[in-house]
């Protein structure tokens, strides 16, 4: 393979690889080449396979090019026809640009230099491995018409489907309510008819209630019952008061509305992005940082819109994910191709917050202890809206310290003290508590 590239570079006008291996006489080979070239350009322009072109485009070009919007490089929809119409440049020029643009720039080609300078001297990666067939496939893909109406219809259909689901639910509930109302009415009617029957037959409905002592009086006269009731009442209210007082200052379930609707479900769940990708400082510092917006832009530079099916999922939660991405762009000052320099901070609302008198260090738990984030933060990868999963009370901390075994393996520096401690407590596995994890000064100082 390598040899053929080299030969190609030597003869930039030759387009077909097979030619190189032609063992005909030079005249014949030239004729053959001429014929092949004329055929190949006219045939291949139509022969390109847009399906293969799409996969080639996605793996080679899409890092820097979109079809309909400029990215690192220019938009490529209909690039071949645009080039030949506007600049009079043919497939040969395009191929040599794709295979080695910097050589073309250095050769002093006017349009090559123009494009190079228009994109701030960003050099396009050379693709010498792309064959003529590959290039015509890719160009066939770029020449395909824009398929926008399909996408719009699809989302509309999904929305309708979701709405229909909602309607049917409402219908069922309505029918149930109607059923209950009918039942109630039927009971009332039955009661009335029975009363009427009684009246007709001359049976008086027994109304001796006035003769009995009222219930409350009977209750008040029975001292034992009063005593028991009072005790039960006091115990019950004590229970509830205790419960109320114990939850003061506990924010379990706290679920504030954030300035940008960020779905952990999509990012950490569906896409499987590691927690530490965004919260990188949890590895190395006390605070597990809220990622700065440039971390969002690592991906969202190229993801400006969510997939149609993701958008449909958003309808279920009443969120338009695309407009949330626009909020990010506004905050970070991104106009689609570059930073405007006008950024403004996003006022995220902090959820997990320990009181000032308690010390907690993320790196100690995440890096040293090797604790999963989910142990404390719950199933974040399933949360559409982030909430506080654990109570974050002292009892909760202590409990975990009592139950969790420390990973002492391969920690040579402390091997001796670990062995002594194990002997002292007579256990195989040391818990955090046995290593001093319940000392007041560990967390309060």
């Amino acid at each position, binding site marked *: 393979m390598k040899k053929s590239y080299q030969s190609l570079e030597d003869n930039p006008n030759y387009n077909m690889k097979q030619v190189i291996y032609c063992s005909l006489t030079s005249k014949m080979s030239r004729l053959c080449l001429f014929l092949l070239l004329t055929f190949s350009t006219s045939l291949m322009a139509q022969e390109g396979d847009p399906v293969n072109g799409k996969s080639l485009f*996605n*793996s080679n070009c899409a890092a820097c090019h979109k079809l309909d919007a400029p990215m690192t490089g220019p938009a490529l929809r209909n690039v071949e026809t645009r080039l030949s119409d506007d600049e009079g440049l043919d497939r040969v020029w395009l191929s040599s640009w794709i295979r080695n643009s910097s050589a073309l720039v250095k050769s002093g080609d006017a349009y090559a230099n123009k494009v190079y300078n228009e994109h701030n001297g*960003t050099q396009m990666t050379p*693709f*010498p491995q792309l064959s003529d067939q590959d290039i015509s496939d890719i160009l066939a893909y770029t020449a395909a018409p824009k398929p926008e109406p399909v996408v719009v219809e699809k989302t509309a259909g999904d929305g309708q489907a979701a709405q229909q689901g909602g309607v049917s639910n409402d219908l069922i509930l309505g029918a149930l309510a109607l059923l209950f109302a009918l039942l109630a009415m039927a009971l009332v009617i039955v009661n009335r008819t029975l009363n009427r029957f009684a009246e007709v037959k001359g049976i008086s409905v027994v109304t001796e209630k006035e003769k009995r002592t009222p219930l409350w009086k009977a209750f008040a006269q029975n001292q034992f019952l009063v005593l028991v009731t009072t005790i039960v009442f006091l115990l019950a209210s004590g229970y509830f008061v205790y419960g109320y007082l114990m939850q003061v200052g506990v924010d379990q379930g*706290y*679920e504030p509305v954030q300035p940008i609707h960020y779905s952990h479900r999509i990012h950490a769940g569906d896409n499987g992005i590691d927690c530490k990708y965004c919260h990188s400082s949890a590895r190395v510092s006390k605070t597990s940082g809220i990622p700065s917006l440039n971390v969002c832009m690592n991906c969202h530079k*190229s993801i400006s819109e969510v997939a149609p099916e993701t958008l449909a999922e958003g309808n279920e939660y009443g969120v338009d994910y695309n407009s949330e991405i626009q909020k990010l762009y506004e905050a970070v000052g991104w106009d689609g191709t570059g930073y405007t320099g006008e950024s403004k901070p996003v006022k995220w609302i902090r959820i997990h917050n320990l009181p000032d008198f308690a010390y907690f260090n993320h790196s100690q738990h995440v890096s040293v202890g090797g604790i999963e984030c989910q142990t404390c933060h719950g199933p974040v990868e399933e949360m559409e809206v982030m909430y506080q999963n654990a109570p974050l009370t002292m009892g909760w901390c202590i409990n975990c310290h009592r139950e969790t075994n420390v990973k002492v393996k391969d920690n040579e520096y402390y091997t001796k003290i670990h062995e002594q401690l194990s002997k002292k407590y007579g256990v195989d596995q040391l818990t955090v508590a046995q290593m001093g994890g319940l000392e007041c000064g560990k967390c309060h100082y």
Partner: protein
Amino acid sequence: MHINMKIATKYIAVLGMLVGLVSCQNNSSRNYQYMPNMYESVGYEAYQESDAFGNGVEAQLPAEGSIPRGDFMPFEIENTNEGFLYAKENLKSPLDSTQVDYEKGGPLFAIYCGICHGNKGDGKGKLVQREKILGVPRYDDAGRAITEGGIYHTIYYGKNTMGSYANQLNEEERWQVVAYVEKLKADLEK
């Protein structure tokens, strides 16, 4: 009949009170605190709002030219194409073979790079498979012919669509990841 009505109104009242008690729990705001001055920090907490600085937040960038403690070498190659080519040719890893630790570089690679580049470096990470991010090259891509200096420059400043990872990885970690990328490249070329 009207006695029944009285009882019914009583039940409704009790039910209403219970509903009222339950609905008092509001998850979109914080709970009460016993002694807020013991809970709330006097000093600045991370990311707190503050009037002390121009942009209204406590989190500030280090002053220009400040140098972190420890073994730090400033990175003086520029964020340009020329800088990249220079780094590709000349920049060498400060880690020698004994310091290179795939046990360190591998997990970091899995966190920060594998999601797009694939855990084998074949450009088929989860985001690529799900067609969220496209055009991620293989490490053995002939046209790119990556070198350790070029990899480091790319991690430090980003390249094309890839962003900078200088704030997520420190200098040593970056070089460990570079070493791991070179290992993956060698594995792919096998």
